[in-house]
């Protein structure tokens, strides 16, 4: 092929890109003004549904980065049926996740037997001080509203769509 033809074709490609960007707009999004919404399954932040948590410490043990800290104590809750023996209930005092250490692997959400932890695609919680990345129980519960419902599955899948306890 002629010596210059590859060079000219290269120029053609970049010129085509210029016209494409000018006419059809750029692929980039001007972040602070417009925002792309992440996929519903994106692992942005972990939300805690406090009601379900029985402080069984499974997530703390399974976390590879040791970034979940739980403190709970036992209480006597009123019996379910009248006259029954008071129930021993685990009361949750402290449930902190240190996002400075967390590597977003999702083992805690998966291993939790009582469906207390959920993923939410929120990603805008950066802090100037790294210490503020330690989200406490209330902050994690606030994330609960941002947790989207589980999506339906592709055709041919036998998985059951779970429900997010609101």
């Amino acid at each position, binding site marked *: *092929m002629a*010596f*210059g*033809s*590859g*060079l000219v*074709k*290269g120029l*053609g*490609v*970049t010129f085509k*890109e210029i016209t494409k960007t000018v006419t059809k707009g750029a*692929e980039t999004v001007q972040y602070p003004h417009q925002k792309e919404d*992440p*996929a*519903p*399954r*994106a*692992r942005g932040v972990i939300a805690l549904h406090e009601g379900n948590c029985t402080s069984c410490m499974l997530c703390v043990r*399974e976390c*590879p980065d040791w970034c979940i800290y739980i403190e709970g104590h036992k209480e006597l809750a009123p019996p379910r049926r009248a006259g029954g023996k008071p129930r021993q209930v685990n009361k949750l005092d402290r449930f902190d996740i240190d996002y400075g250490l967390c*590597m*977003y*692997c*999702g*083992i805690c959400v*998966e*291993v939790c037997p009582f469906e207390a932890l959920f*993923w939410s695609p929120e990603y805008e919680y950066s802090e100037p001080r790294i210490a503020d990345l330690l989200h406490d129980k209330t902050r994690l519960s606030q994330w609960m509203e941002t947790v989207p419902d589980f*999506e*339906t*599955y*592709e*055709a*041919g*899948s*036998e*998985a059951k769509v779970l429900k997010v306890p609101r």
Partner: protein
Amino acid sequence: MSATAAGPGSPIANDSAADHPMIDRRQLAYIAAQAADARVNVELEAEGMTLNIGPQHPATHGTLRIVARLDGEQVVDADPIMGYMHRGYEKLAEVRTYPQVTALVNRIDWLGSFANEVPFILAAEQLMGVEAPPRAQWIRTILFEMARVANITLFLGDMAVQLGAVSPVFYAFRDREHVLNQIEAATGGRFHPNFDRIGGIKDDLPAGWIAETRRSIGKIRDFTQEMEDLIIGNEIFQTRTRGIGVIPADIGLSYGMTGANIRASGVDWDLRRDTPPGQSSGLAYDQIDWKVWTHPDGDSYARYWVRLQEVREACHIIDQLLDGLPGGPIMAKVPRIIKVPAGEAYVATENPLGVMGYYVISEGGLEPFRVKIRSASFSNMSISPWLLKGTYVPDVVTILASLYFILGDIDR
């Protein structure tokens, strides 16, 4: 001259070099020319200059440092120094349970990260004697090929920027973004999916995922066409890469080079197809038809060319997988707390950078007793002291870019 796609049928590894004399003669001619330049300068006994390329350097993918003794602009000898990114995965794996190691291990080759999990999980499944259901295997293969596409499209843009053309790398980032979005939509993580489990995968594909993935794969196909016009045809690119960094096949094999680097030297070997006797590749490659690309030259141009064809082939594979995805469960019957029975197993797969394998020794407990991680870039890079001798400084950048290593893969 666009190279013929049909590399030599039988792998070059057999001794009879008779059936491709022309290629070997041309390869040896290239090397002789480079060595001749080096010998001339050495005889002049000019006192050289030691140049530190790295660890902070635009040409090294991460923190690799090359101490090069230069004579003028010619490298007399190059000694790569690694370890700036050494995180000690083999030690960490000994104190982590199997699910934790899976979450950890996709940070080795962070560009095609799902591809790191697959061999480790296959090794653990082999030890436990568990087989993933067909739907899980097909979804694993789709994500495996999408990791390959995400990894190698960045190479196609990145090699151009190492040679000076700034625009192609933006096209690479722009088009692989769609693939990453699809990986995130299915697994939840763009770079670190942590989606593979012993016995299957974590979750099934969301609705509408297949259609959206087909569209993003179409974008990748346009990208490869754009790279063909912009880079492969460019005469400046050809003058910069033809005959530079030539690796004959048997030297490459004795250094343990794998993947596109060795296929560019004419070796027709791909673990996805050439699985050991009695074993399946653990993925769904045997149920679809696809082709292994080789190139006879063995120089930097050939490596770029082979990888470009591999991305196209990956798009072809993904399309077929998406069409024939079987229904059914995505997880075999596996106990909740995984205790892998005692034994030793080695499984290797054809990762985007080359062959990646895990030698897992289990003592029957929660944690593996020893995990030897065979990473592709470590062996691919081990040839660089031999390869960089006698080259110019700009060629050092070209050769390193064409070898396409990732620092996490080298340092582990």
